[in-house]
């Protein structure tokens, strides 16, 4: 019995000692699904400098959202705490005060804006099309020029979407592939003619391959998607105007190049 007590007290003491080294700054509790790559996902190990322990369960959160959340917390001089919450529970948890912010790849739609306040966007996705320089599609000026093109996208991205393919009238939808390295090969070998991608991916792929270029289209010739659906913003409790201002100021310090670099880093870590 004495031994058990001794062990127990050692156990408690070790916790107390660990406690001493802890960050004592005010907590900034951020909610995300930890299930929406490349914005946020879960790792079992601290795989990057951004990976942050998820509160109340094993595992670390990583991804573009975690990078942004960490940046915001550091600039507010608060300690970042991440909670993994189901998508349906995020807004109600924010309203209940369980979390301070939602940084979860959430688009600031007008329906959601009735329930929560949104910061300025910390990410704006842009759909571009990557093609071979020598292909007939390289001179396309509109999404209507892709009739009969074999089009591919990365699996489970917002580009691999019915609505987007419907707008590429006449195109042939190919089975999506897992990694953009595989899609690049598919493009280069001629199996696919066009690759629907996010801007940072397009820059990375074309930057390392001089046989490929990406196409952007002028207003009216590109994809018709609501601007608010392309934006990603931080959600806050209604009426928290001081914090909204502070966070907007922090987001304003992030350059577009920095955002692209962070997104590219997240995509690379995700495919590792």
């Amino acid at each position: 019995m004495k031994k058990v007590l001794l062990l127990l007290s050692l156990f408690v003491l070790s916790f107390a000692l660990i406690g001493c080294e802890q960050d004592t700054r005010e907590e900034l509790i951020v909610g995300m699904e930890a299930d929406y790559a490349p914005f946020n996902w879960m790792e079992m190990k601290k795989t990057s400098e951004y990976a942050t322990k998820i509160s109340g369960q094993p595992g670390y959160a990583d991804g573009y959202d975690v990078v942004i959340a960490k940046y915001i917390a550091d600039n507010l001089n608060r300690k970042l705490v991440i909670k993994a919450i189901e998508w349906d529970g995020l807004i109600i948890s924010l309203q209940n005060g369980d979390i301070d912010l939602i940084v979860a790849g959430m688009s600031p739609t007008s329906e959601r804006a009735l329930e929560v306040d949104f910061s300025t966007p910390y990410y704006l996705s842009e759909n571009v099309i990557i093609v071979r320089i020598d292909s007939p599609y390289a001179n396309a000026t509109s999404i209507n020029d892709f009739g009969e093109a074999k089009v591919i996208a990365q699996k489970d991205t917002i580009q691999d979407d019915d609505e987007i393919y419907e707008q590429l009238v006449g195109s042939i939808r190919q089975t999506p592939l897992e990694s953009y390295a595989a899609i690049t090969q598919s493009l280069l070998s001629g199996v696919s003619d066009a690759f629907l991608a996010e801007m940072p991916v397009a820059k990375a792929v074309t930057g390392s391959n001089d046989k490929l270029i990406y196409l952007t289209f002028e207003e009216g010739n590109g994809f018709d998607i609501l601007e608010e659906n392309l934006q990603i913003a931080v959600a806050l409790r209604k009426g928290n105007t001081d914090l909204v201002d502070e966070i907007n100021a922090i987001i304003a310090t992030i350059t577009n190049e920095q955002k692209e670099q962070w997104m590219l880093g997240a995509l690379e870590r995700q495919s590792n």
Partner: protein
Amino acid sequence: MFIILSNSFFNKIAYLLENYYSIILYGLGITFLLSIVGTVGGFILSLSLTEIRLLKVDKKRDNRSVKMLKRSSLFVSNSYVTLMRGTPMIVQSMIIYYGIAGLKIFPWWNPLTAGLIIVTFNTTAYISEILRGGVESINVGQMEAGRTLGLTKRQTMRKIIWPQAIKNSLPAIGNEFVVNLKDTSVLSVISVVDLFFAVKQAAGKTYAYVEAFTIAAVIYLILTVSANFFIKHLERKVGQVQV
């Protein structure tokens, strides 16, 4: 179907198990905890609940206030059972967890404690129904015999009726445990990190959802099959000493 037979399917399962075994084991532990606490806690609470539901209003002997008290207790306890059995646990979870979280009166209120309470309350209603059936299935002759031997009504219930009712109900209560093993997966809506939630998160990075849920299915099956095996064993044991 092809996806299930392909080589990459097994590779992904291996990848998930290798990288995410710790969260899967953690989720398995939580599922087990929820089912055990829910079934044992539900059983204990349902004893009192069933006792209330078995109250009989004696029109001749009970005075007016006793009648009132009995009738209102019967109404409340029966309504509780109807409510808990008549609504899905997923709906109860959302209402109870977020409803109470919004009041901010319990600092210990988190998904896990809420989940334990929800599954216990839910199971209480189901086991109470099992026990009520168990008590009512005991021949009235037993009560008469007890009273003839000079025991009071309460003593007869406690020493003769209840032990037989509980013994006969054990397999059905065990079955509740099996149901809980599977049904606690709905608590993932309030972010309880049970087996279901754990494998879903494990799949998040690679979107290997079919593979992840196949792992979950196999684990759930192992759990329920072994629990069923245990219940069959219990049934045989109980059968041997049948009166």
